[in-house]
């Protein structure tokens, strides 16, 4: 799709897990790949992106979606993937390969500035885990592996991928894949919804300034929010925000999510040649942070973040402009 002057942008809305709370001290639910937040008792899942081989025709938000799904495979969670453009099987085949490392200690970061850091919900990892250093660092809980690393230049082994229980929905299929989402074993369900709001879903949100049924998408997100709140699941939704002209609708989509992140790629925009941004591929805007079961959430030092895609890794850093302004204070 041709990108407008602003450059290709994708927004990600992440609905968080429901507010599962421990009933008694002894009944700690133990689901692989999750851990309770000490801050508010909420169950957390790792996003898969830990601090994103670039497919040139892809968008960065699709890459983060693949991280999210890959993490689900590695943690043994159930997956549900819905897509209107690319077949879900194709997206699954592109999942990045996890870096298997026997020495878990190598991955543990040091020098956390705040003692409460390990308890940050994983979705906030994307936002500001940089702390006072330029690179994103992740702290792992000592006993439970929470969060993994991936090599984007390789795809996940089919055996590993096929071991995961994955349900999919492809808009262009005549009969959607019927799947029962109930399981005897308590597990987390990760939902990935790709490019919601695009024309391919049959919605006119992207086509018009005043779409006739603009509330169809927002009603869907509202009901999805309800489903997430009443189940052990988490959803990552990507929205082609550069196609949605109506800013009020974008605002509503953001408020219906718990976490909202906007990726602004420099491709095709004037920022591509701006020397301030020469080391980056785009900016990452944190539009909204979750405040679930608590009055305030961890607040980052700055919201000026930029990302770059290296051969094997997707990195997020404080952008140079943030570093410059900090040095003048």
């Amino acid at each position: 799709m041709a990108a407008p002057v602003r450059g290709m942008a994708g927004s990600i809305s992440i609905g968080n897990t429901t507010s599962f709370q421990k009933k008694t001290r002894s009944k700690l639910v133990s689901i692989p790949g999750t851990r309770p937040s000490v801050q508010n008792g909420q169950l957390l899942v790792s996003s898969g992106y830990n601090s994103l081989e670039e497919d040139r025709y892809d968008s960065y938000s699709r890459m983060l979606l693949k991280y999210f799904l890959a993490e689900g495979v590695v943690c043994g969670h159930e997956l549900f993937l819905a897509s209107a453009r690319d077949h879900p099987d194709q997206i699954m085949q592109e999942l990045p390969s996890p870096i298997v490392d026997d020495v878990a200690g190598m991955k543990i970061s040091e020098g956390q500035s705040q003692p409460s850091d390990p308890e940050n919900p994983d979705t906030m990892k994307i936002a500001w885990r940089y702390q006072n250093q330029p690179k994103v660092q992740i702290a792992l809980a000592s006993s439970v592996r929470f969060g993994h690393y991936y090599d984007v230049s390789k795809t996940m082994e089919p055996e590993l991928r096929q071991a995961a229980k994955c349900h999919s929905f492809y808009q262009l299929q005549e009969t959607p894949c019927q799947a029962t989402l109930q399981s005897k074993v308590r597990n987390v369900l990760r939902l990935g919804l790709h490019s919601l709001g695009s024309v391919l879903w049959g919605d006119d949100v992207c086509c018009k300034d005043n779409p006739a049924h603009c509330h169809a998408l927002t009603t869907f997100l509202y009901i999805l929010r309800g489903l997430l709140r009443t189940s052990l699941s988490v959803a990552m939704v990507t929205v082609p925000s550069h196609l949605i002209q109506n800013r009020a609708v974008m605002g509503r989509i953001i408020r219906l999510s718990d976490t909202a992140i906007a990726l602004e790629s420099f491709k095709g925009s004037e920022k591509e040649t701006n020397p301030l941004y020469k080391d980056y591929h785009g900016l990452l805007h944190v539009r909204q942070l979750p405040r679930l079961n608590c009055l305030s959430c961890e607040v980052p030092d700055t919201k000026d973040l930029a990302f770059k895609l290296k051969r094997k890794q997707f990195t997020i850093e404080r952008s140079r402009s943030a570093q410059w302004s900090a040095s003048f204070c």
Partner: protein
Amino acid sequence: MFPELNSILNSTPDSFKSSDFILVSDRRADASFLIHHHLSFYLRAGCKVCFLGLVQSFSHYSAVSQRLGVSLAQAREKGQLVFFEGLKNSIGVILQEDTSQETQPLSYLRTPGAGLEGLFRFVERSVRQSGDGYAGESWGPPVLLIDDLSVLLSLGVSVGAILDFTLYCQAAVCSELQGNVVILVRCEEEDADDDEEGSNLLQRGLVHQCNLALHVEGLPTGYCRDIHGQMEVWWRQGEETIYNQRKIFHFKVHDKGASFFARGTSSAVL
């Protein structure tokens, strides 16, 4: 509840204005902490509270209220609190085509064009319930709290229908029963494209209805870690004031409350 906010608004659980219609709004910020304040405030005051929780689960409010020293579960059990869980009940309506009496408040989900009469009837029933609670306790004046009203726009309900609903609520709760109403509305940016039928229009309509408005925004100078935003308090002229009053405060939200200070007096600055 937040003690500093009580002194700004000159009210305490033992002494507060009745028949008050309070509008809480935000733009590019999150004013829901003020809803938590009012919820714990009125429960402590012994009022009968009807809470329409349209965007978060009961356990979310319960967890926060616990930190503010109030137990929602107990209040609900005693009959002091009627809690409407919008998210949870919506699933029943949409997925199971449940048309029973209990889902009447959510009739707007299936037919958004039909208005909010079902929801109003629910509110009316809840606030008019007799005060026979736990061990024959009777509660103070009723209070209606809504978090958040603007989500109804996302569900296809028109601004006009929502304003009708709030007028009916004001008539029933404030005028007739001398109770209070506190409503949260989340607004778009001022120049958002389509706001002929949007949250800004809704907010403007409610500003005319209310006698106290608390509006929360981010700092005009940009994001700051130590000051989370500014809150504008607007009092409509009444018996005590001969003219409208307006004051702006900065605030910071903590784990167990919020602090408010005059502009430029944050500890980060001084």
